[in-house]
């Protein structure tokens, strides 16, 4: 589903490569944690998957497409296969929960009928039944993240990318979010999650890829957060 072949990414004006000869293979339906300290290259990895950047060297394949060669006008189509969740939720404050989720479908031209069935269905799945008319401000952090996940998942993407989705949440709420991501993963969606949260990684026992200074230093099935554990 995601394949990095000796990928190097150097940002203009930086001597150090943000990613250095990274080769990683993520299969369909896998759940992968991406760990490492700040600046280790996690975000760059995710951004390459989203084709926000092109690699400086090497090849990146996402959902069967080689993104180096993907024409700019085809990028939106690629992104429809990928759902994205961030630490800061990125909800539209002037839209209700339902509208926020529907927005993702509207702007890619889904019909009103599709939106009418998909939005409540997805809200129910993330556990927000009955909160569709609330504004994001009226919800707790965990609930806001659920809205963001609903928005990322409403179009049933093949890949879900989560960039520290529990970074702003307390441990109890984080567990709820992880359960939700796990459920989404079990529908067959590939999940790649960058995180600093050792507790969660240790608890979930999924594949762990650790980055350090832009290199993969560990790729472990059913791994834990720190090597010392």
């Amino acid at each position: 589903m995601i394949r990095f072949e000796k990928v190097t990414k150097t940002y203009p004006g930086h001597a150090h490569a943000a990613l250095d000869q990274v080769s990683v293979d993520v299969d369909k339906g896998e759940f992968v944690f991406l760990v490492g300290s700040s600046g280790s290259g996690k975000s760059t990895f995710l951004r390459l998957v989203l084709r926000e950047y092109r690699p400086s060297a090497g090849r990146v394949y996402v959902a069967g497409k080689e993104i180096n060669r993907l024409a700019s006008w085809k990028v939106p189509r690629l992104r429809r296969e990928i759902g994205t969740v961030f630490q800061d939720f990125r909800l539209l404050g002037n839209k209700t929960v339902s509208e926020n989720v529907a927005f993702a479908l509207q702007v890619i031209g889904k019909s009103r009928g599709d939106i009418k069935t998909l939005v409540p269905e997805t809200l129910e799945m993330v556990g927000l039944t009955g909160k569709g008319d609330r504004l994001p401000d009226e919800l707790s952090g965990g609930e806001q993240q659920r809205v963001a996940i609903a928005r990322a998942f409403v179009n049933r993407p093949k890949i879900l990318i989560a960039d520290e989705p529990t970074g702003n949440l307390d441990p109890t709420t984080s567990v709820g979010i992880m359960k939700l991501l796990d459920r989404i993963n079990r529908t067959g969606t590939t999940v790649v999650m960058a995180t600093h949260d050792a507790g969660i990684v240790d608890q979930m026992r999924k594949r762990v890829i650790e980055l350090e200074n832009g290199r993969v230093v560990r790729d472990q099935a059913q791994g834990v957060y720190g090597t010392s554990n």
Partner: protein
Amino acid sequence: MQLRYVFSELGQGLRRNLSMHLAVVLTLFVSLTLVGLGVLFHLQAEKAADHWGSQLQIQVLLCNNDDRNPACAGEVTDAQRDAITTVIDENPEAAGWDLETKDEAFEKVKELYGAEKFEGDNAILTADDMPESLWVELKDPEKFQGIASAVTGLDGVSGVQDMRRYIEPIIGSINMLQWVSIATAAFLVVAALLLVANTIRLAAFARRKEIGIMRLVGASTLYIALPFLLEALVTALLGVLLAVGALGAFMYFGIEERATDRLQFIPWIGMEQYLVGVVVVAILGPLLTVLPTLVLTRKYLKV
């Protein structure tokens, strides 16, 4: 593509950025009006030059039947006319010549004073009353004395008319007006472009969150840019409408109501030239807003 979102965004965008949009509309209005006026003045100068001959032409009037000039002995004959054109052909100051027939001269008079006075039984003039003339093209507008004296006195020549003395100041002022309005318009066009650019920057900033999400979920670039393009088109349309109205007012109150009556000897521009101005303004207006929008949305909304 679901356009409901696009149109609600359009309305919201126009309201949110009302003062900037008004600034764009007003700047466009004034600059397009000036461009339009420049076009009208240009066409006016052209029309006047067509009528009187350009500054490179002098007119050799030939004798007609009831010419009161003692040099004339009745209508110019073919042989006389040939002799005159030979003299012109051989003169080093002349670049060429053109015969204006009685009918052509009559048409010019009709155009100037209104055709109705010259038709029917009570016509004050007929084509037959008009003299034929030769429009002589000069190589150098300053050098016409030689050719004037060469033809003066030839059989069949009633006189040499150098209309340039009267026309030059008029065409000169019209030309000056033309350049003043075009030059002022050029500055305002730059101002309009900068305003459009600023408006888009502000709008893109105000909507950066939405735009970020749209890019993430895979909205097409066109879909993201569409509200911006429509905003640009709406402001252009308003600017064009105001300018077309202002030019219409100029044509009506300036040309039709005043100039045509008071300065009858000048052939004034009319509906046809106004439409040319309208077309120029209607093409230029949208270009001025849509082009920078296309360029800048590519920059700000890059996927």
